[in-house]
């Protein structure tokens, strides 16, 4: 990777890392990655129950 690309990647990642830190500031320990699929299944099931 050229120096230019390296600098761009560093800057881009610094921005992403800062965004992650801001967003995760109040993330509780009970929140786990598998919650994503559960959110989709629960969202669909909730709608079916309501209709």
């Amino acid at each position, binding site marked *: *990777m050229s120096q*230019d*690309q*390296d600098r*761009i*990647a*560093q800057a*881009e*990642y610094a921005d*992403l*890392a800062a*965004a*992650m830190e801001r*967003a*995760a500031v109040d*993330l509780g320990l009970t*929140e*786990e*990655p*598998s*919650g*994503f*699929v*559960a*959110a*989709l*299944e*629960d*969202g*669909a099931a909730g*709608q079916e129950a309501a209709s």
Partner: protein
Amino acid sequence: MTDWTLVTLAEAIRRGQTSPVEATEACLGRIRRLDPKLRAFITIDAEGALRAAKELEREATAGQWRGPLHGVPLAFKDLFHVRGLPTSCGTRTAEYFVSPHDSTAVARLVAAGGITLGKLNMTELAMGPFGDNAHHGHVQNPWRAGHVAGGSSSGSGAAVAGGLALGALGSDTGGSIRLPAACCGIVGLKPTYGRVSRAGVMPLSWSNDHIGPMTRTVRDAALMLGIIAGRDPRDATSSRRPVPDYAAGLEAGVSGLRVGVPENFFFQGLDPEIEAGVRAALRVLEGLGARVAELRLPDPQVMNDVCNVIARSEGAAAHVRLARERPEEIQPVVRGRLELGFRVPAHDYIQALRLRARLTRHFVTEVFAAADVLVAPVIPEPAPPLTHATDGSVGELTTRQARFARLTRSFNGLGLPALSVPGGFSRAGLPLALQIVGRPFDEATVLRVGYAHEQAAGWPARRPTLG
């Protein structure tokens, strides 16, 4: 015949008005004539397609029908493994991706009677929203040469819009089905995460990859989705939920349906013609009885950032050997995207996955309490010139890429079904489009809204002039 839709061709074959061989020869003739300019295909399997067509014709003559696609010519993005054909994933290496099995989605379409014309061009490693490819040729927009077809499923968009295939499969990790569908004036559906098996498809980001149909009409997309959707033991993330008959509910209308329009993010910094097209589509839906109302969404940029961290990390893991052993083979801007993935610490990757869970739960609960579907733009501007994708420093190209995919990416993170449908044309004759987003696994409603708009707008009759 190549102007027909997938559904009308299948019906004509059933009625004996045309045959699988005639349909396949018509497509192959068009490919021979137009693809040297369009660059939609990486591999054309004329021999295999004709062999399959003859077999299907024999079966039809004997009254044997494999399924609803009997004799319909299709093509697949070159990251779907198809036994007997190479899978380059848009790289310089013909056999970059190999699998012991046909991809499940392709196998299901072939079992339903579909014919494989070949493998379609794409952005290298599916990393980029414009559809340019220095190795296999830049895919041209069928509506205007010299403009991008959108990516990464660029060949899929151009082939369907140009009448080279009746339908195609694409993959969507940050917009790669919806962006080319919007740029090429066709229909593209990213289903719910888990709705369609990803087995036998090159991974870019296991957590964000979605497989879906790209077609001329919403009815065609509904038919293809019904065939490819459903549980697959070879993809642990595929859902066990039953697959509804998506075509059955298309004509139910939108009267009383609550259509949410984002008041933040999605309409900021848009090309005026894009905004006008979406607003016009909303008036059409309102005229059909939908209840259209603005609503404020949880900031989509947060989910865009989360998706970026996840996709870059997983992309780097998926392609580490290529990036480390043969980096000189990769286009600079794609290499830059891979390199970023190597910089993401495990801690940030896991935080992103955890954030995604929270953001998705919050979005589904809050937004769909107020609306049944969302309608938003897909692309921030009509398909730009190809130089927009190829000329400039890596930094400039990366910035343009991020901007062009900013309206689609968050729905990959949220895993929600999102449909791109045509929404008129710009003054320069380039397609406009809108994006319809629904509840998890509610593709049926998303398709119903798209169909209602399509029928009212009367778009499908218009075709690009390609000679």
